[in-house]
């Protein structure tokens, strides 16, 4: 058992260890203003955790992320399903959704700032805008995959509208929606940081901004490390959600 475990996971740990060693060496040989070694980053991270600044930042960011993201799914999924059912509406709206999906939403941040100011709501709007279109786009894409025969059969058995949604539409569309959800998680994270950078400064975004303004390179690295780990964790969660639903998908 342990040798099998070792054989499978040794390359992973070896590469992580080599990477950290490289970071340590690079950090020690470079000027402290540019790069700090891994050990210093850990020390700085520990200081942030002990001082409590880290957890308040994390909570602030989590509140923003969750509010915006849940809103995006709550709007994107039903709207996408509606578009799926009403084909005429879907055909009409599709190019606009595609356009918005491809538009860099960051460009709207200055407008949101000057119209809505520095509160919590504009930041939620940013996260929402970043994440709603992947959900919507993929849901509509999934709706296209529903074979028309299925709806016809359901109709010819006099299925009620509600049963049709529950038994045919939802199972067929949700796996695609989940692809959108996975993409939306990544985008919402970018939106969260962007909102915290360019609107009122709070949370993890402020942690990193503050550190860079004080030339606290250790703090910058510590925050990037943490945000990176959160990003990896969220991505993994998104992938698991997607794969869980992908079993239905053809």
């Amino acid at each position, binding site marked *: 058992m342990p040798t099998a475990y070792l054989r499978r996971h040794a390359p992973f740990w070896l590469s992580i260890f080599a990477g950290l060693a490289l970071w340590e060496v690079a950090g020690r040989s470079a000027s402290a203003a540019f790069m700090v070694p891994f050990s210093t980053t850990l020390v700085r991270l520990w200081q942030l955790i002990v001082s409590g600044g880290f957890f308040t930042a994390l909570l602030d960011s989590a509140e923003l992320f969750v509010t915006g993201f849940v809103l995006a799914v709550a709007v994107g999924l039903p709207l996408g399903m509606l578009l799926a059912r009403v084909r005429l509406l879907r055909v009409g709206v599709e190019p606009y959704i595609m356009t918005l999906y491809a538009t860099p939403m960051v460009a709207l941040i200055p407008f949101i700032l000057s119209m809505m100011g520095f509160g919590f709501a504009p930041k939620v709007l940013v996260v929402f805008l970043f994440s709603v279109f992947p959900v919507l786009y993929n849901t509509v894409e999934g709706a296209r995959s529903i074979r*028309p025969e299925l709806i*016809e059969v359901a109709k010819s058995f006099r299925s009620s509208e509600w049963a049709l949604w529950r038994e045919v539409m939802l199972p067929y569309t949700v796996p695609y929606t989940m692809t959108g959800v996975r993409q939306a998680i990544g985008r919402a994270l970018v939106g969260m940081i962007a909102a915290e950078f360019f609107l009122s400064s709070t949370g993890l975004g402020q942690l*990193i901004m503050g550190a*860079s303004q004080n030339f606290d390179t250790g703090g910058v690295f510590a925050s990037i490390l943490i945000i990176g780990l959160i990003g990896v964790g969220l991505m993994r969660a998104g992938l698991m959600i997607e794969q869980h639903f992908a079993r239905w998908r053809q």
Partner: protein
Amino acid sequence: MTDTAVRVTAPAPVARKNWKLADSAFVPRLICGVVILLIWEVAVRALAPAYVAKPTTVALAIPKVLTDPVFLKATGETLAAVAEGLGITLVFGTIIGLWMGRSLTFDRAIRHYINGFNAIPMIVVLPLFSLWFGYSTYTRIATIIFAAIFAIIMNVADGARAVPREYLEVSRAFRASRLSVLFGVVLPASLPYLLAGVRLAAGRALIGAVVAEFFLSIGGVGYYILYNSRSYHHNEAFVGVLLLAGFGVGFELLVNWSIRRFMPWYRRGDKS
């Protein structure tokens, strides 16, 4: 609405092939577009202050902005930066991706880093890059590369891994050198993946460029938008947003078109 839905769901799968049906989509699209613009116009007129962008005033601003040398210069700068960044990304991303796809050791060594960096929201590195490269255009290029390269690497690596075994066996039977196998067989075979990666990367590169311009206040479309919206010239700024949206969509269409045109076998069954 509901009665139309029952009737029209049937021809959906044929829509892609049948051009007449595609043309019939034009009318609902036009109507939806007009409705969206109307809602926007009315809502802004009723609820928002006068400086907020609305369709009529934005339309009036378009000719003025498009002939404004400041705007043209900004567009050129951003586009050049994105093109340069994407060029660098494409070369290095493809090489690293191919290598990852064909060498298990290399793949194991760096795969977690690629995945990890890909998961980091790219904006986060801006403060660090501005420490490293200063408030300069180098930081913008670096941000663009960071934003785009991992998408390319991951897609090319997937593509290189998915190359059919027979191709490699045949090239080995003909004693092809490693390098010519890599660039003569593996690269062309993984081209669809590369293009999918490019589509992703281009969108991210654009975001990276705009964010960098916001953050660093260096010339470009992003800064043009920021500057004009700060000085309450929302209409002018919105033309910048339209331009960015145009790039995003244009690139998406370009990639889709080239997949259909040059790799028609790839799309089959991908979208119904």
